[in-house]
Structure formats: structure tokens, C-alpha cells
């Protein structure tokens, strides 16, 4: 059983995503929520870092937070999956624990 990591801060303002991706074990799940969803978009200065991480961890983004901020799923980096609140619960249940990167 692995860890579900949640990141709720913008990658352009905080180092939460950097640290999360650095310490997450291969095979771990990373869920981007709240301002963390900006890391899931294409064309940003964080894109290469996120694409690189997709080789090691599974990355999810919370759909309602993405929609609130005005972005459609077409703007997401390939390989990132959208989940709803029920999907968030499933991820929490599937993993041994949840680690929040605030």
C-alpha cells in the first residue's frame, strides 16, 4: 500500500509540489487540488517537471477545482487523470495513508 500525496498550493508560489515530487516513492499517487491544479496545465514553466514525474508516480487532478479556475480537461498534460470528489475518496481508501503538502 502506498501513499496518496495531496498538493494544494500553486507551483509558482510555493515549493509544495517540488518537495512532494522529490520525496514521493515510485508508484505513489499525487492528487492536485485547489491552487495545486495549476501544475496540471500544459505550457507552464512547471510542465517539464510534472511530465518527468509522470514516469514515476500517478498524477490526478480534482475536476471541480480545475473547472472553478476556468480550465477544461483539454488543457491538461497527457497522462494526468481527472477525478471528482468520489474519486478523491476512492484514492484515499486505496492508499495506506494520505500525506498533505500544505
Amino acid at each position, binding site marked *: 500500500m502506498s501513499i496518496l500525496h495531496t498538493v*494544494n*498550493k*500553486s507551483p*509558482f*508560489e510555493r515549493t509544495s509540489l517540488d518537495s512532494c515530487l522529490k520525496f514521493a516513492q515510485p508508484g505513489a499517487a499525487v492528487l492536485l487540488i*485547489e*491552487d495545486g491544479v*495549476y501544475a496540471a*496545465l*500544459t*505550457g*507552464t*514553466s512547471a*510542465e517539464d517537471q510534472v511530465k518527468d514525474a509522470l514516469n514515476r508516480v500517478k498524477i490526478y487532478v480534482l*475536476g*471541480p*477545482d480545475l*473547472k*472553478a*479556475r*476556468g*480550465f*477544461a480537461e483539454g488543457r491538461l498534460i497527457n497522462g494526468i487523470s481527472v477525478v471528482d470528489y468520489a474519486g478523491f475518496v476512492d484514492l484515499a481508501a486505496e492508499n495506506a495513508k494520505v500525506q498533505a503538502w500544505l
Partner: protein
Amino acid sequence: MSEIVKKFLYLNRKAPYGTIYAWEALEVILIGAAFDQEVSVLFLDDGVYQLTKGQDTGGIGMKNFSPTFRTLGDYEVKNVYVDRDSLAARGLTQDDLVQIAWEDFDTEEEVENIVEVIDTARVRELMDASDVVFSF
């Protein structure tokens, strides 16, 4: 009403919804607009996310305040600026942003979109030229 007109700059550097800064800034801008000062609003860093089109907060149970930005022109705010480098770093262009129309009700002068994308030199000039800077 005071005769003294100062140049107010509202500096917005935070993304919407994740924190309360963006909403608070908008409230202060709208209140300040009632005082007939010369107002500029600048979106920098993650602040550029405040102006993205198509925001739909139905799923997160928060008020979508992005439509309120489109009314700034009605509050005689004519200067809305967005930092070009901040957009570029986030993979955004002006097409991703809302438009804000402005109209002078006395002269009937109209501007279709007062949102202007500016470079670093213009941002510096704007800050230098301002009498007061409100930071959010």
C-alpha cells in the same frame, strides 16, 4: 469630495479561490472606486489567474467572482494591466482572459476591452508613477 486626486495602484499577485486575497482585493477596488481617484489594477504572478475565462465554481461551493471584474469599467476603472511574463510562465495568452469593457457615460467614448498586457518596463513605470500601492 476632495479635490486631491491620487494615483492608486492595486497589485494582485494571488490566484483566486485558494486564498481570500483575490476576493478581498476586488472588494477594496470597488470600494475605492467610489472615491474618484485615478485607479490602475495590475495582475502579476499568480494574480493573472484571477482573469481567466470560463470560471465555474459550482463544484466547489464558492462564489464565482470573476464576472465582477467585467463590471470594473462601470466603476470608472479604466486601467487594467496584466504582466506579459506572468502569462507566459503559465502557458496563457490574452485569449485566455476575460474582456472588460469601458464606457464614459458623459462623452459616450467606448473601449471594448481595457485589459492590456504589458511588459516589465511598463510594470516598473506603473509602479513608479503610482502614489499609493495596495498589495494583495
